[in-house]
């Protein structure tokens, strides 16, 4: 035994025991996670944060068709706020964002609660609700465009089935077109939110539920007072995911309405694209991109801060 122990420290190379962390190889082993992550880290710093700074720089220059280095301060931001389309885009973002997040959350929670009732077909129904998430927004947008087109889809079918006075022309109506975007978006993502809530519901301690039942609480009261309050973290995650998807919604709008009848469904993402690339106003487009970034940061940064602060206390 002792001979073995004496010999152990003289061994080197592959025979060394795995928890010896001295020397160069030891340093390598300790830093292995950092080495593996280093390439992605560098790429992220460079391509994400580096280009965010570059976009911020462009938003302060007089760039029109191609980047330009003439500094003009915050003029682009002033121009941006005076642009009619930007006001429309912000209004649409508010409508779309609030409705999308609220309806997805409520619908997702309801579906999760219903699926959690230990029904027989759960394994069969759950994937069905999740299928829309597997489609890209372009496919969703195109399919819903055909469905909602008055001359092709729902309205025409209703007319052919005999219900002549049925009318559902939201898609081509300037004021209602944004709500069709909400419909398509909710259809796509509520399954995903349902899956998140289902996981959260499964994580609730069964003892508490049994205790509530023993105390005579009805099913509704159990859910309202015991289970849903414990889903706080899931609500927060769902909110973060949904809000970033709402702000980035570009392909859905382009596929479904192409910017809407006129410019009725312009959103910040489509605005940024068209002003930067099509209209030769790169400075204004970059300014709008920075505003979008600040909006997302205003939501994500407090969330991250709360998360990391919580961890440190543990």
């Amino acid at each position: 035994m002792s001979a073995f122990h004496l010999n152990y420290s003289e061994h080197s190379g592959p025979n060394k025991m795995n928890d010896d962390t001295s020397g160069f190889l030891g340093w390598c082993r300790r830093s292995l996670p950092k080495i593996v992550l280093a390439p992605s880290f560098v790429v992220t710093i460079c391509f994400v944060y580096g280009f965010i700074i570059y976009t911020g720089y462009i938003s302060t220059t007089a760039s029109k068709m191609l980047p330009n280095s003439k500094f003009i301060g915050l003029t682009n931001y002033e121009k941006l706020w005076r642009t009619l389309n930007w006001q429309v885009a912000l209004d649409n973002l508010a409508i779309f964002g609030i409705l999308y997040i609220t309806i997805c959350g409520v619908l997702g929670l309801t579906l999760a609660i219903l699926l959690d009732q230990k029904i027989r077909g759960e394994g069969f129904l759950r994937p069905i609700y999740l299928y829309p998430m597997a489609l890209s927004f372009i496919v969703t947008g195109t399919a819903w465009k055909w469905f909602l087109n008055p001359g092709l889809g729902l309205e025409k079918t209703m007319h052919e089935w005999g219900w002549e006075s049925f009318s559902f022309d939201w898609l081509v109506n300037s004021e209602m077109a944004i709500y069709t975007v909400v419909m398509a978006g909710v259809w796509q993502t509520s399954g995903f939110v349902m899956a998140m809530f289902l996981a959260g519901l499964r994580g609730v301690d069964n003892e508490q539920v049994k205790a509530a039942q023993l105390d005579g609480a009805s099913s509704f009261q159990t859910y309202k007072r015991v289970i849903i309050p414990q889903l706080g973290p899931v609500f927060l995650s769902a909110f973060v995911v949904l809000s970033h998807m709402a702000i980035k919604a570009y392909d859905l709008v382009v596929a479904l309405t192409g910017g809407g009848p006129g410019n009725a469904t312009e959103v910040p993402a489509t605005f940024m694209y068209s002003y930067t690339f099509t209209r030769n106003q790169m400075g204004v487009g970059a300014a709008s991109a920075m505003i979008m970034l600040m909006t997302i940061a205003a939501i994500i940064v407090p969330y991250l801060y709360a998360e990391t602060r919580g961890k440190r206390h543990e």
Partner: protein
Amino acid sequence: MKARYLKVKLLAASLALGLVGSVQAAEDVEVLHWWTSGGEAKALTVLKDDLQGQGIGWKDMPVAGGGGEKAMTVLRARVQAKNAPTAVQMLGFDIQDWAAEGATANMNDLAKAEGWDAVVPAALQRFSKYEGDWVAAPVNVHSTNWVWGNKKILDEVGATELPSDWDGFISVLDKIKAKGYTALAHGGQPWQDATIFDGVVLTTGGADFYKKTMIDLDAEALGSKTMEMVFDRMRQLRGYVDDNFSGRDWNLASAMVIEDKAGVQIMGDWAKGEFIKAGKVPGKDFVCFRTPGTQGMVTFNSDQFVMFKGDSAGEKSQLAMAKAVMSPAFQSAFNVVKGSAPARTDVPNDAFDDCGKKAMADLASGDLMGSMAHGHSVPAAIKGAIVDVVTKHFNGKNSSADAVKELVAGIENAK
């Protein structure tokens, strides 16, 4: 020893062949364009075959999108990646923007040798040249203030004499609508709304008003009662389109007129290519007339092939292509199929049909003004602002007075 000499001989022979081969083969031309509808693609094959005959290969790079916006985006990406295509189809101010960036090739020598200065109208040269240097070869001259009518439907409503003023036009549209057809075939894309706008501005205020508002951007003219009347008339036209017009492509709207489903379409004369391709005969199956009230005036846009600076090997093919594009024979052959008028004034009009002859006559004698909707009157940023207001008004419910206010503010903001 013998084998070594054999190898050397073989190597020398292949090198010699290779050298000969490379001297003979010219570089292919890679052409970026948005001529993807049936009639347009057919017109382009005229150029392809011409170049094929000269031994120059053709690499096609079509980017669909009737107004060319997507193609311009793709172009920007390619130029930034230092991989510009050989030639690019471009309109109006875009040519000037790219030339200002120093990305275009200089064709002065070719222009002098071929005598382009004498045969290309001055209004077109304003866009083909940058600071006096030729940077683009104009292919055609389209104009946007045309109405294309289905002769059968027009005869049915008794409109055998074509309307020559706005009120006459409206009464014809009413009659067509009363018969159950779609009066005005239209595609609800912003550039199509803007194309109609060109004609309505021209007919409401005349050539001077158009120049003051769309070219000079005079704030007083833009905010005037005449402009309000323009928007009123746009609202009138909105009442004659069918419910499904949103997002429809322009050639599908032309198809509605071709297939006896709609009465008229207000569209540039590239629509004629669709009618010709469907086998329709002008004067018998369809009629063409200027937007009522704009006879003798032409809001034009000219497709031009811009040659981008690249390596010197590609330059020979570029110049060959530019020369081919400007040759009278090609100008005649291409424009007969495309529906436009030649960019050279010395091309004989024998091969053209009646509508083509009409277009060429108007070009020679009429008042030529750049089309706002197609980037020939103001740069892209201001055009975007105008089109925004036009399309919002067309698709929405805001009043003409509000639209005029938004127009003035939007243009000011985009300068």
